[in-house]
């Protein structure tokens, strides 16, 4: 049997870590603790933007066809967006319980307004001449939508997607209120420690910028005719 000892160290404070400072050595040694929260953050952001995009895009197409749906849909997405995120995470808890599902539902509801509004305005902004010309060529309504209207609205649609994405990265930092993890959880664990805030906060900002750049690149690939204008 080994003689057990727990090392008791004499500390006098004064180290960079004990002073909650910005400590490059500590950061280099501790990057690994941010891997899982970062991946959770990526998961929350990408999943909710993807789901939100599909829902809002479908609703926008519906409202494009049936105009009377536009005011109620647009008003409800505005009301959803108006609810503070912390509050929404908590309002959902009694209904959906703790965990990433609750986090995702709240985050999805925030992406709706950006995509919905931009898809509808994008489709409305398609020049009437182009639509008439396409109709003259005998395109069906479905062909008109997918071959003319949606491609011409792409810049608007992508703009909405970009804003939805950067906003969601920011809001996902509060998803820990719903028990969904993410970088926000790491931030609040030691929110007085400058190194921690710098790394966790920096990763969130970096993630937003990279995703934004990624979407912008995809947009350029899909709309080569607009390249000069960007």
């Amino acid at each position, binding site marked *: 049997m080994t003689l057990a000892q727990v090392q008791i160290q004499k500390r006098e404070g004064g180290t960079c870590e004990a002073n909650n400072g910005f400590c490059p050595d500590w950061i280099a040694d501790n990057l690994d603790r941010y891997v899982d929260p970062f991946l959770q953050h990526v998961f929350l952001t990408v999943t909710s933007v993807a789901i939100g995009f599909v829902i809002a895009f479908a609703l926008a197409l519906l409202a494009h066809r049936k105009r009377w749906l536009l005011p109620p849909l647009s008003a409800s997405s505005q009301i959803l967006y108006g609810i503070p995120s*912390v509050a929404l995470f908590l309002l959902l808890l009694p209904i959906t319980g703790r965990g990433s599902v609750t986090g995702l539902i709240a985050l999805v509801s925030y992406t709706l307004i950006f995509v919905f509004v931009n898809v509808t305005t994008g489709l409305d902004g398609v020049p009437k001449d182009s639509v008439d010309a396409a109709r003259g060529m005998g395109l069906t309504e479905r062909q008109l939508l997918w071959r003319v209207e949606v491609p011409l609205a792409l810049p608007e649609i992508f703009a909405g997607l970009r804003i939805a994405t950067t906003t969601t990265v920011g809001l996902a930092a509060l998803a820990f209120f719903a028990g969904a993890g993410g970088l926000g959880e790491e931030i609040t664990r030691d929110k007085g420690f400058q190194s921690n805030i710098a790394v966790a906060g920096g990763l969130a900002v970096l993630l937003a910028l990279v995703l934004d750049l990624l979407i912008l690149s995809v947009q350029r690939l899909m709309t080569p005719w607009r390249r000069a204008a960007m």
Partner: protein
Amino acid sequence: MAKGGDVSIPLASVFSEFGGAIEFLFKAQPSDLDPNTKVGGVSEMLGLLLNHVALSGAAVAIGTAIAIPLGLYLGHHGKGEFAAINASNVGRAIPTLVLLTVFIAYIGVGFVPIMLALALLALPPVLTNTWVAARQVERETVDAARGMGMTDSQIIQRVELPLSLPTIFAGIRVAAVNVVATATIAPLGSVDSLGTPIISGNVYGADGRLGAAIAVSVLTLAVSGALAALQRAITPKGLKMGAEKPRRRFSPNLRRRETATP
């Protein structure tokens, strides 16, 4: 266990949780921790509400007071396009929680640091909208004013500012909604707000937490609605009926009339 045991969603219990939360807002009740301490009720919630509004109001006022002159100046001279236009987009990418904790970690807790953090949050939308609005004023109008002998600062004050007001107000509305929503986490920095029952869950209990979430949602929606009404009221008739109907949309590039207005 949670799985399998009670499969049916207890709808009644969901209702009772929300019922308890609303009761918390209007009727003081014993704290979870100590029956002699009363929490919730109209008077405490009103106090928190006032603090919430004061904090947010001060932050929006300071942010606006900096952003409008800056935006008008830059817009008038056509400078700072990159800064003014990207401010909103980069601003969005910074999580509000990070902004707040950076201020806590580097400056400290209390009313002033938290208010400054919130003011920083209010700045970008107002700056961007002011800049864009100032650029949108027709050159002919500006030239006419100059022809009448107005100086640059007179043009900004008497021509560009009035014409830009509706768009600037749209920016103030975005800023106010963001700030009021974010003031919910102000108690993390030792400032009481409607978020206090959320952050101090032990004292206020589950009812308090949910009640505060409801209260803060109602407040944000009310602020958003009130500012929207105000925005409509100050928009000159000519602009409202104008041939070119302003279209709403969100764009990170914001080279358009009306900018992000949730």
